[in-house]
């Protein structure tokens, strides 16, 4: 049994969290946007602790502040109140310890797939030799199934392939936390399934703490150890948390065949339709 499951059980069974197990800690988080009509409070009193090697998905209605929360964790959006800390260190701005996979692939279209990944790798491993850095980038591109497209320009790749590069780029910088903002939202369902498989396969190896926003209930269950349900804004907070107790590594088939799957699914849909 791996540590992720141990800690997960610790969390779910006794309700006790050991501080050393916490990767990401959001406490009393608040986000306010000033508008001409007065302040608009997007998030308020949001508390969430995410454990090491945990995969968390966040689900909620559009505009409830999921993306705001994620970009605050990434350091791309100012915190209006409360705290975010990674391994006890408060977040002060963006940094490569928190890799982000954006909704649009956000590759530099004038660079090759390899150069896009290297852009991050060069930054994070400045002391490695050129060959070593190339190896790291190529390894992850290989992992996402792009071993034949190293030197293709990003603008020549399909949307799905571009997002594969996005995944490779995020994993290649070896972040402590991986933040995914609806990464497969723009893809057709077939490509989405493929990319979910690729993501979970790499994640099973690397066990990087992951926080992923999604609109897709099935995706949320298939990938996550916990599904966080957010209430609708303004003043959005965490409405409910659902533990997903499927064994890892999971396959789509084993998940679909598990009876609990439908209970989980009903729980989430009930919350969203509520």
């Amino acid at each position, binding site marked *: 049994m791996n540590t992720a499951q141990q800690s997960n059980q610790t969390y779910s069974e006794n309700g006790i969290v050991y501080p050393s197990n916490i990767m990401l800690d959001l406490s009393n988080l608040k986000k306010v946007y000033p508008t001409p009509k007065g302040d608009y409070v997007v998030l308020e009193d949001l508390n969430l602790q995410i454990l090491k090697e945990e995969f968390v998905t966040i689900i909620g209605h559009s505009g409830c502040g999921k993306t705001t929360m994620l970009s605050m964790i990434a350091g*791309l959006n100012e915190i209006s109140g409360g705290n975010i800390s990674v391994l006890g260190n408060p977040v002060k701005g*963006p940094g490569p310890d928190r890799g982000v996979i954006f909704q649009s692939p*956000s590759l530099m279209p*004038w660079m090759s797939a390899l150069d896009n990944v290297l852009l991050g790798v060069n930054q994070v491993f400045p002391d490695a030799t050129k060959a070593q850095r190339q190896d790291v980038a190529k390894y992850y591109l290989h992992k996402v199934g792009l071993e034949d497209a190293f030197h293709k320009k990003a603008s020549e790749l399909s949307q799905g392939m571009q997002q594969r590069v996005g995944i490779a780029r995020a994993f290649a910088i070896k972040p402590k936390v991986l933040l995914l903002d609806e990464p497969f939202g723009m893809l057709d369902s077939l490509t989405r399934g493929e990319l979910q498989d690729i993501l979970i396969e790499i994640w099973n190896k690397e066990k990087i703490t992951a926080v992923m926003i999604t609109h897709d209930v099935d995706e949320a269950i298939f990938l996550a150890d916990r599904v966080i349900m957010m209430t609708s804004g303004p003043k959005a907070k965490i409405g409910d948390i659902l533990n997903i107790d499927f064994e890892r590594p999971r396959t789509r088939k084993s998940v679909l065949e598990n009876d609990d799957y439908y209970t989980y699914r009903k729980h989430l849909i009930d919350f969203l339709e509520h």
Partner: protein
Amino acid sequence: MEQEMVLKKESNMVSNFKQTILKLTPSMKKDGVFKSLKNTGITLLSILLFLGLWQMGSKALYNKEANYRVEKALQERGEEAAAAERACIESGDSSCQPNTLPSPSQVWASLQSLIADHQVISADKAAFAEKMAVTNEKMISQGKDTIVYTGRASFVDIVLTSIKTVFAGFLLAMFIAVPIGIIIGLSPSLRSAFNWFIQIFKPVSPVVWYLLVFMIVKTLYIGDSSDNAFVISFISVGLCAMWATLVNTAMGVASVDKDYINVAKVLKLGTFQKVFKVILPSSLPLIFTGLRITLSVAWMVLIAIELLAQSQGLGLFVWEEFQNGANDSNSKIIVAMFVIGIIGFLLDRLMLAVQNMVSFNKNEMA
């Protein structure tokens, strides 16, 4: 026998190959050929129509002026003089030809005479160079200036001077506008600091730029007898034309896709890397759009500026022909007009090709 077999096999293969090709390109190729034929046809037709209208127009103007002259002779000097005037006009004598819009054939003849003139002058130049070769070698060995050909410039020389001026001006505009554009694009406060400057100087006319440059360069060249017309004209051209590049560069740099900036932030790229790996490549298409506008503006203002600066280019050529008032002056002006138009068009195509080369998203460009 064997050879025959081989030949047969070969011809079989060729015909198979042909069939495959035909299969691969069924109606598409035919349509494409038809379409391009149609387009060429339409273009040719419109050129013919244009020439026809031009011919008719020039004929009408010619008749109007001829009739006026005959009428005038009749009123002032009587019937005999009028008949003589008409006979003179009809004989094609250059002394009494109406001086109006030339016909296409006259323009064509002028073009040929300009080319012939160029050949005469270049032959002259070659002969001069040969004659002076020995003397010039001596002059060089003695450290003196060589003797250069100072005869009349041919039409081709004039065109080349214009192209040289426009490129010098374009390069000047580029070296001023691109770096400044990048800097003010990067900083919103510098952008607002520079804004009034750009807004005020952008609409200033080429003539005024010329006068400004003239004031400055004249003083800088004081006591120097060398010809500064070229310097004045290319600097004026550059200053007139640089604004499009400046504005476009600043806009391109300021409006880099927010996603790219976020990626740069997450990866914590340094300023240098951020500028050279993210911001500049992503604003290149807009920068080149600006440069393309700059080149076409440069070519447009060039004519006016050469005229004022007395630089031996097309602008001065047009003006001198107009002042000259010789019989073929008007048709030479029209020749210059076409040459100006065609070179302008070619320069624009050149820039478009470069622009397409640097743009990373081919779909966005039309």
